């Protein structure tokens, strides 16, 4: 059975605490996407005009590092939020996102969603409170990666 977008959104942590009207309201900014293995969802430096909730699949966040080429710094998968740069100016993607497997995701039009959050601050606040724990988790993980704990003790 095919589930509609508000229905899919309801089961995701990102929409925790939203009522049916608010769900329907933000669902107006969303549609389903499908990416084949190897497809780029967005590229480093692109306008960050969309963000995704991954339904199924695995996506690599990549950075281009001079001398090393593309380096994967994080992978994301089922139920993860993908894309943060859409939230704040200058709305440019910091990483590239490439599908490692067939990936299905709900994609939000960032301009549309920002507009709705501006128009309804209660909605914006609720979404931000759902976004923040995930962001803090990412920050903690990134710091642990930065600590390079597996490096040899004497360098």
């Amino acid at each position, binding site marked *: 059975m095919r589930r509609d977008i508000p229905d899919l959104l309801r089961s995701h942590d990102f929409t925790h605490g939203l009522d049916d009207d608010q769900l329907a309201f933000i669902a107006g900014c969303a549609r389903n996407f499908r990416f084949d293995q190897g497809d780029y969802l967005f590229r480093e430096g692109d306008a960050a005009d969309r963000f995704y909730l991954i339904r199924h699949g*695995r996506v*690599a*966040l*990549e950075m281009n590092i001079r001398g090393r*080429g*593309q*380096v*994967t*710094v*994080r*992978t994301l998968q089922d139920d993860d939020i993908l894309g943060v740069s859409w939230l704040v100016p200058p709305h440019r993607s910091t990483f590239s996102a*490439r599908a*490692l*497997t067939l990936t299905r995701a709900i994609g939000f039009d960032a301009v549309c969603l920002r507009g709705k959050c501006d128009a309804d601050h209660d909605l914006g606040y609720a979404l931000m409170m759902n976004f923040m724990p995930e962001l803090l*988790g990412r920050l*903690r*993980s990134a710091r*642990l*990666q930065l*600590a*390079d*704990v*597996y*490096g*040899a*003790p*004497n360098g």
Partner: protein
Amino acid sequence: MHTLTIEKPADGFAFRPGQFNMLYAFGIGEAAISISGHSDDPYLTHTIRAIGKVTEALAAFEPGMPIGVRGPFGSPWPMDLCEGRDVLVVSGGLGVCPLRGALRHLLRHRDRFRNVACLVGGRAPAQLIYRQELQELEQRADIQLEITVDHAPPDWQRHVGVVTDLLPRIRIDPETTIALLCGPEVMMRFAAEGIEELGVAPERIFVSMERNMKCAIGHCGRCQLGPNYVCKDGPIFTWQRIGRLVTRSEV
């Protein structure tokens, strides 16, 4: 990274997963190295990272050279306690070595345990230890194995991130789970805290500590950690006993 396999003496050399030996490079010195294999194996396996005089000498060993072995020492993983329960194994970097014996025990007697899950963390794909064995484990349906690295080239299809990111995705029943952890201390700290958050009690989380060990019998005090000697009371402790000490920098 260098792996030494040592022929056992004729009367055998019984040990339990998680224990270590003192390996002696004649004329240079001794180092505590965990045993990476299972007691049923016909030889003793030690994987060594050359980071000092003794380990550099051990890493340079050639087949046929004589080596001194004292052991086995230390507390083992609580394999008996794991029976009838879910088991979560979390390793980081070299930590996979002392856990290898536990993993082999779990798989050899798979029907004695409920869900078995294993998270393996490393710096980059090329630096994963026992990579071939891990890839074979991935094919098994009776163990959930997830491998993650801190960064990877584009052809890497597995996870990139830290092991704690994967904890919420593991299918275990926290009420019955025994967790076995070994890796860099900061990684074990984050992992133990994450496992506690899942609902596993700290007395059922076991960590293998690493300290610079010299005598291996609790005399010299080199490996003291709070009131404990890692060589004699450990190297495996419950998180309940050791967690408070791991988060303090002065011990």
